[in-house]
């Protein structure tokens, strides 16, 4: 599968990574190379094989419904840029 520049630009937008226009071409070449190599998987017959998402074979552990966390605004905000009045701030979003 070869990826063209537009596809790479779209994926980069999906992933919110700014890629300089000049880098799109070489990057699409690299990514295409990786995808070509990955596509050797097509040679494997996986008919009737269930996907394996996790190797863990216990069931999902559950927590009791108790308030055991939170009330740590200082910790939550300790590493942010530009907090105000207990809020995080970001460039204004226009809806």
């Amino acid at each position, binding site marked *: 599968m070869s990826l063209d520049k537009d596809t790479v630009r*779209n994926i980069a*937008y*999906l992933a*919110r990574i700014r890629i300089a226009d000049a880098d799109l071409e070489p990057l699409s070449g690299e990514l295409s190379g990786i995808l070509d190599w990955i596509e050797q998987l097509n040679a494997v017959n996986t008919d009737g094989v269930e996907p394996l*998402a*996790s190797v*863990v074979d*216990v*069931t*999902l*552990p*559950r*927590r*009791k*419904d*108790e*308030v*055991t*966390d*939170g*009330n*740590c*605004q200082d*910790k*939550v*905000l300790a590493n942010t840029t*530009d907090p*105000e*009045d*207990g*809020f*995080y*701030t*970001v*460039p*204004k*979003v*226009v*809806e």
Partner: protein
Amino acid sequence: MSYILAGESGDWEVVIGLEVHAQIISKSKLFSGSATSFGAEPNTHVSLVDAAMPGMLPVINEECIEQSVRTGLGLKAEINLTSVFDRKNYFYADLPQGYQISQLYHPIVGEGTVILDLDDGSTREVGIERLHMEQDAGKSMHDQDPKRSFIDLNRSGTGLMEIVSRPDLRSPEDVGAYLRKLRSILRYLGTCDGNMDEGSMRCDVNVSVRPVGEAELRTRAEVKNVNSVRFAMQAVEIEARRQIDVYDDGGQVVQETRLFDSVKGETRSMRSKEFAHDYRYFPDPDLLPLVISQEYVDAIKASLPELPDDRKQRYMSDLGLSAYDAGVLVAEKETAAYYEEVAGGHDAKLAANWVITNLFAVLKDKGVPISESPISAAHLSQLLDLMADDTISGRIAKDVFEIMAETGKAPAAIVEEKGLTQITDTGAIEAAIDQVIADNPGQVEQFKSGNEKITGWFVGQVMQATGGKANPGAVNKLLRDKLKS
């Protein structure tokens, strides 16, 4: 009764499906131990997990699972014993992980049914496609600062149930009935408080239109930001009209997300949100498949409360109430509980009347919900007792009721205080009658000359003379005897 909109080219039918997001009632969040309660200082009900700090991991709250199963059972839906959490990937300021944990491919609840109670007393089934658990987002505030939006993550990670209906709704009335019924079921179950004002129940409305008689569904638009039943109904009307106009102008409706603006009475495209949306769902590798047992489901089923449909049926078949009265009384869990307390040991229909006619008028007048009624169910029940044992007449009861509404006092105390006890002592009544007869010879003459209707006038006089306290039955009988003698 069907809802048909006229366009230039002909008549149109509206097809609606709803996605309701209901906040799960639980003490702590879906995947973290921070509190869910509403209205705290910003970013205080936030753990390091909710703030998506590096290396933080989700652990599921067992109560949210139970509440979701309970809700599924309340919707008469199939419960999936294995369900899987997926990540829905997108960037937004109030979504700290950069993904929402949801259940796309294998939801915990499958197909179910909601029965609509329509205004004309008829009912109709609406299909439920699925219910799944997911995380709520935080809140962005855009009007605090000219250049910045403020982010509060208190709501981030609270458990939600997304309840998706089939496109079985056909009118704004259907939408209203569906939302009210769903809210009623959730509140009966105690799984969501259904409070649309505070946002603990929100809905997205999927609307499409098609010419009457056309079988296929046309392209739908998803209308967001609909935060009341009334707005949902309005949004359907406005969006359906817009789509008909698009078709009439020779255009095509595009599949998109639209924002409902209740002030301007319009829906508008949210193109910014639409661009390059691709959620890249995949199973969350931090979690394992959620497996529950049939015994677990059965135990929850056994503990379900009586739900509004069953209760309505019972009121009709066991208590003899009309479909309308039963429907009104069961709609809110609190109303039904109030009614049952009042009706206990009394005539069911009489109790229903008092609640629906008299009490509702008082609540409406005072603008309070039944949970804040100035007249407690116990007091109204006592009032019915006083009527039943002839302590007061129905007429006096109405007066006492008015005083109860104003003062909140017990009816017996009011009767006592105001000396309103019904006079059943025939001697006292006879004395009053004798006096009225003696004072009004002319009217007595009229009676004797055959004007029997004047009896009513005499009754009125006697009741007036006794301050309304005389037992009307006794007055009637004694009066006739005396006038005839």
